[in-house]
């Protein structure tokens, strides 16, 4: 059975928070292989993960390492 983008996006998110069952993981991987939209969403969720971990961002006028 194929999954659609709505289901795939939900699995993409849940996969970041728990281990998906192997069958689900395979369905998701197959969907991502075929679907540009969900591949983008996957990259964006991953980026969001990195960005949120760095919130509130560069240290401005503080004494941390200065950005150019």
């Amino acid at each position, binding site marked *: 059975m194929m999954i659609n*983008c709505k289901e795939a996006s939900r699995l993409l*998110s849940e996969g970041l928070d*728990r281990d998906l069952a192997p069958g689900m993981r395979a369905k998701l991987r197959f969907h991502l292989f075929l679907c540009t*939209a969900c591949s983008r969403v996957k990259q*964006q969720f991953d*980026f969001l993960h990195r960005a949120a*971990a760095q919130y509130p961002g560069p240290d401005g006028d503080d004494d941390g390492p200065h950005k150019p």
Partner: protein
Amino acid sequence: MALNSGEILDPRDLDRHRPQLLKYAMLQLRNHAQAEDAVQETMVAAIKGAQGFAGGSSVRTWLIGILKHKIIDSIRKSSREQSLDLDRHESSPDDMDVLFKPDGHYADMPADWGNPEEALSRQRFFEVLEECMESLPKATAQAFAMREVMGLDTGEICENLSISASNCWVLLYRARMRLRECLERNWIGAGGR
């Protein structure tokens, strides 16, 4: 100014971080009195433990590290006092339906963000991210902040919010979908990158 380990932290030096800390706490607690308390406790702990400050990281990073624990304590305490009444809208993923066509395709094709990493060195990007997080419903924002900002696992988050694991996954799904949409509109689409 650079603070090296061994130097004494000046309380005035801590105080200038207060507005940023308060914003950080508000984002997650959504309650002014609770946020003020968490920041105050952070300041007290910082002054008491000033010798624990290792010069390597910035004062702000160190303070945020302390604040995270105070925020979690606060969320835990308030959810114990009154279990978060997760309204039906927040516990069900039905509001995500508008993002999709009836056949399950995206209503709007997600954009290609290119290489967004560069945004992580820009203060303005984090302001947009903050506005996007502020626009989320309360429990959704709290779950996301605990998961992705503070890096807790979902077990701890469910416990802190007194909700089921499946509710927790719904909150995080909503948060990610709304945030990707919000960033796409207000950062990528606004030519931020």
